[in-house]
């Protein structure tokens, strides 16, 4: 394997909490991007970025959905930053049973940010004119790693956790017969 293949483009979205005005344009754009056909419907609760907002306590945290987790973590964390209290889970990107965030409202399946795969600039960043979100690409050395799970795989994995492998397989078998 050549050295080249160990390099990887890391796509990163930086968040400046102080610049967020809570407009949720990021949610609008993300939900539209992932609608099918694209931009044919909008629904912030399908967005893979969510602004955790507590207006009177001045909490504005735009959060992108990360991995699905079958169980909540042990020992949640609260943060105090410049005297401001953030509640537990405020900075956690997990699609987790402890909360509604990052689940498809109809199916309850986990949502995960895919960096707007085929767009040069992530849509949430593009519409965030106040500058709370900015985008960066850089090259990083990487050890070999497993390919990332695709969306379907992530979804299936969560279903397996919820219903057990057998039930999921039975259902898939039944559905494919119907087709």
């Amino acid at each position, binding site marked *: 394997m050549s050295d080249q293949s160990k390099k990887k483009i890391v796509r990163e979205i930086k968040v400046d909490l102080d610049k967020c*005005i*809570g*407009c*949720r*344009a990021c949610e*609008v*754009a993300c939900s*539209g991007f992932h*609608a099918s*056909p*694209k*931009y*044919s*419907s*909008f*629904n*912030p*609760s*399908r967005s893979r970025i969510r602004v*955790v*907002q*507590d*207006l*009177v*306590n*001045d909490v*504005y945290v735009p959060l992108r959905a990360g991995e699905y987790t079958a169980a909540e973590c042990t020992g949640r964390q609260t943060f105090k930053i410049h005297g401001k209290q953030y509640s537990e889970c405020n900075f956690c990107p997990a699609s987790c049973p402890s909360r509604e965030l990052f689940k498809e*409202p109809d199916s309850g399946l986990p949502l995960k940010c895919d960096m707007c795969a085929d767009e040069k600039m992530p849509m949430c960043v*593009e*519409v965030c*004119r*106040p500058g709370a979100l900015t985008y960066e690409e850089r090259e990083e050395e990487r050890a070999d790693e497993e390919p990332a799970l695709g969306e379907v795989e992530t979804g299936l994995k969560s279903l397996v956790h919820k219903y057990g492998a057998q039930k999921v397989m039975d259902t898939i078998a039944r559905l494919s017969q119907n087709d």
Partner: protein
Amino acid sequence: MRYAETGFNLEVDLSQGSVKRVPTDPKLTELHLGGQGTAARILWDRVPPETDPLSPDNLLIFSTGLLHGTPVPGANRTSVSTFSPLTGLYVNSLMGGWFGPELKFAGYDKIIISGEAPGLVYLYINNDRVEIRDASHLQGKGCQETATLLQKELKEPKLQVAAIGLAGENRVFQATIEHANSSASRHGVGAVMGAKRLKAIAVRGTKDVYVARAAELWKTCRGKYQEIYDNKNCGDPMAHDHNESFHVDNFAWGNARTRRKDYWNKEREEQWVGLWKEVRSRDSGCYNCPKDCHYTISYPGRHTYFLKCFNKLTYSMAAFEEIDFNYNILGLTSAYGMDGFSTPQVLAFAVELYEAGILTNEDLPDFPADGAARFFYLLDKVVRREGIGDVLADGVYRAARRIGKGAEEYDHNTTKKVEQVPLKLGVVNYPFFLMYCTGEKMNITQIEGSFPQAPIADPEKRRKFVENWSAAPERFKKWLLEWEPRKHMPIEASVNVCDWNEAMHYVDDAIGTCAWLSSFRGQFGGSPPYHLFNLPEIIALAAGIELDSDGLLEVSRRNRNLVRALNIRRGLRRDVEKPPEDHWKIRDPEMEQKHLDAYYEFKGWTNDGVPTRETLDRLKLEFVSEEFIRRGILTAGGGEETAAERA
């Protein structure tokens, strides 16, 4: 499939305790677009003109705009339509924030509230699940606190709440409905909600909103974020400007009486900015808009609240106090839910009556000596409707008449019973004369906005303005170019200006776009993000309703005439179409009436301000003309003298 709208209204009968999801007629959307347009239609059909605004028979309607929930940036203004206890007439009060879009995502275009609950309740909407719930634990709670408590209680951090405070519960006519960083503040809509014993509406929605032509609409919207963000002429400049000289030196202090021309100076600016830095905690925007017109204030001892627009000065100016007082008292009035335009004027009016000996120590026992303490004292009486507060809570106009003893003389700044912006000017300005007289909103900031308020003195600047004025139909460019300082425009121009200004507000109020991005901001810089020439396409792409500029204007006129008709049916006529008494020092009654004649003629109204049968029928409002004839407001043969004939 319905695009942009959900096609359902939520009917809530608080007397019966029932809720119903009711499909709407898409034809009405084509005729009125939505927002206050369709709300006015419901009020026309269902609230007879004899209805007391505070009775169970009045309807309180929360409308999303047609574009709420679509990606059109800045479409988030919820309109609250009902009949006002202050004016006895129709009121449409608007609030920004996140409420309207959330309601759409819950699957409703409107909430139509009728009846009166037996005890204090709140309405919980979570998609299809709708419940009327006991709110006794929220009684007397501040508006912002109510929202926080409901978010906690229902375990819904994304819940959007619109709530009344103590003022609404006590049916004070200055009572607002507060939502997050915004409020529906006009003409006592909070009192109507209080009369229905509805403390709050809490909404959570997770459904989709569909748009007609996805790719094209997104392409248009995508560019708008940057455009709006960069456009210095839109949004609320007061939110970020620390030079307050325009308002404090030019607007009237006290009971809209006294100009203090040299009030502003560098030293004061430094003091004010110093305090602002201490109490301001955060800038915020509204749903899907890149501007940040609002900010939170955390004043010691007060619940955190959002500062809005001109509220930042009104209490200080009314009480002749420094800015600290304003931040302090706003902490209370925001919690009580009280309008920052009218409340300070009501309090200043009372102070003036006391100084004139019309109100005495008997009316105001232990009345303090200093301005700030007097305001706190009066506020407490008004919000509780206690003693003289019960009288003042009806607003300046009604209070003056209830108090008598010459108090009427001190009511010099109201139009159609509504306290106006405290402005006292020199020579009458005819477009403004017409807007004050005929505006159905009775608040000048919600009528003016597309055409500059005054001529641009420098011919070069004037030319430049006109060159870049993409929002204006051609004829206005000519009128502005020819408008010289200290000169009046031709009557025809003034009439057209009034018409265009208000027409753009009627557009916003149907589709839900924020006036700071369109109808109110064209006058500054002439480049609002939304205007007559780009909105038709946006509406077509989002809602699938094909329109051109003329078509959009026609909808706007239809809505405007329907609102007019609601008020005509409740008794409004020419005799009350007057500006505040001493708004201008130099008046010309004959010329003023000529303008009013010309405006009525232009509108197709009779000489008494009633839309004629032809006008109504042309706008497909036959049901209005039929009822006008039945009620004898118009005659079947159309024998009324029209403004045109008289002229």
